[in-house]
């Protein structure tokens, strides 16, 4: 027997075979995403040609369409207009249309940002307080409390959407940023408490106890010793909360309409002439997915923990 390596280690051939299969899977699984990004750089005509065009002349039509509203005009009217000032006006003009104003994409995107950041801040802040208490103190019925916090995730969102809808209507919170921030904060709390409790359990108690012997109060010890120690965990939790709020759809589509609507319910409604405007949807999708992809790469070490509510740690 070859004693130079452990029997666990695969032989050269089987390792190469495994790597090949994984690479093929990776390529296949990324095709849909790549295709959508590619579509965002196609012209409307190229996006609906068959067979699908793998090589195409890049165009920014999708992005222009995403950010503007346009209307089709007769040729003689277009000729009577002064020459276009900007490249995007020229592009729209070449499709025999004029720009009538900005689209709703930017407001929707910024709603996603405002609500996402707001909800992330509050769920991480409140979550770290609760997680600290549950991690350090004797709390009556602690396990039941933790399970209760987790079980709130089992509700189908639609099941609580109706009462929340009625409640929000009464309180004047329907279709407002504040209402959505509160809602997403609450939905994220279960994840935030569970994850942060796991991270805080890993910080030795001796640190705070030493600080308290040096004259810190419990509060000071928490804010000045424990929180800085938990920075990585807090950052990872925050990114998870952000991704959730960013991607959430059910509550957004049911509870918001004009004022506080986020991007996910909006992107599917981008319509061009004669159906959905695929390059524009591709562009919206691309701009919407980029932050999440960056987050995923940043998070890769904590991914497992986040998706299992801390049940599995590496």
């Amino acid at each position, binding site marked *: 027997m070859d004693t130079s390596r452990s029997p666990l280690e695969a032989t050269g051939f089987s390792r190469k075979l495994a790597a090949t299969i*994984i690479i093929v899977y990776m390529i296949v699984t990324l095709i849909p995403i790549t295709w959508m990004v590619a579509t965002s750089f196609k012209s409307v005509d190229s996006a609906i040609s068959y067979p699908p065009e793998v090589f195409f002349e890049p165009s920014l039509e999708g992005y222009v369409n995403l950010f503007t509203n346009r209307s089709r005009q007769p040729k003689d009217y277009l000729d009577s207009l002064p020459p276009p000032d900007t490249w995007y006006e020229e592009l729209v003009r070449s499709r025999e249309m004029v720009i009538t104003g900005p689209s709703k994409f930017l407001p929707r995107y910024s709603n996603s940002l405002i609500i996402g950041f707001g909800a992330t801040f509050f769920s991480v802040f409140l979550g770290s307080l609760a997680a600290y208490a549950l991690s350090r103190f004797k709390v009556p019925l602690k396990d039941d409390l933790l399970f209760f916090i987790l079980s709130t995730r089992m509700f189908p969102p639609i099941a609580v959407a*109706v009462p929340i809808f009625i409640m929000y209507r009464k309180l004047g919170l329907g279709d407002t940023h504040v209402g959505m921030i509160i809602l997403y904060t609450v939905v994220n709390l279960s994840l935030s408490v569970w994850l942060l409790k796991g991270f805080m359990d890993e910080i030795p108690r001796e640190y705070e106890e030493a600080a308290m012997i040096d004259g810190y109060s419990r509060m000071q010890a928490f804010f000045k010793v424990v929180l800085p120690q938990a920075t990585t965990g807090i950052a990872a939790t925050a990114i998870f909360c952000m991704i959730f709020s960013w991607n959430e759809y059910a509550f957004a589509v049911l509870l918001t309409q004009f004022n506080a609507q986020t991007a996910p319910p909006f992107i599917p409604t981008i319509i061009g002439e004669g159906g959905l405007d695929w390059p524009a*949807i591709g562009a919206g999708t691309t701009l919407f997915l980029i932050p999440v992809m960056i987050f995923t790469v940043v998070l890769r070490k904590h991914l497992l923990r986040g998706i299992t509510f801390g049940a599995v740690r590496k």
Partner: protein
Amino acid sequence: MKSAVKKFKGLSDKAIAWIFIAPTLILLLAINIYPLIYAIRMSFTNFYANKIGREVKFVGLKNYKKILGKEEIWEKMQITAHFVCWTLVLQALIGLGLALLLNKKFKGNELLTTLIVLPMMLSPAVVGVFWTYLYNPQVGLFNYVVNFFYDFGIFDMIGSSTLAPWSIVIVDTWMWTPFTMLICLAGLRSIPNYLYEAAEVDRASKWQQFIHITLPSVLPFLLLALLFRGIENFKMFDLVAELTSGGPGSATELASINLKREAFEKWKTGYSSAFAVILFVTIFGFGNVYVKVMNKIKER
């Protein structure tokens, strides 16, 4: 030590514990539990949320009887079961397979894992929309690729009532297989080397090692992954709402999609609340039984 700490200034630990937990608890009670109780209360009435001022009558168990006696609801449950079962089977098999391959440590392993994981981090609703493009019968890439390997002619994954249930299974599997993969991979990495070394000394074949060491060690992890996916897919709304919105007809009308139609399109608030309660109890019940079984398996 404990008593020494207590002497220091500031609030008592007990007070701090409650101050720290209270905001979380209050918010969960206000935005989760109160609406749930509200929904349970409404489920016994004939309330319509769009008809304000109309007298709300207590109707007892009528809504529940109506739902459980309705053939249509059992159809929705069947559609949901089809979706949940197939996605779980496919994601378990492919996810475990990928994890086994990734566990053979080769170069670029971590980068490949991160890339493979990408689909599951995306917004399900947005994924739903762009798959309608891939599934487009005239210009869709999916249809083109399928026809490239075997010419089926024009087919419509979303528009045909026989294919549509599979179209949602395919997209969900594409999106969430990395989830099972990642958890199984953690399970594989937790197996101590000495188990295999001992097996090797005992001249156990690779296959025997797989059956007696690898599989039993990964199983709890795989079961945990399936629990998460099972709950999520039983509640599935966003992805399917944008992909097929329950159609054609009601071929892909999962429980949650049906619930949304009853609650927010027909505004049958009382009736749909009863349905919501039934769904919640089902998820909770299944979840609890599953966890018990899972723990039994772990103990073995």
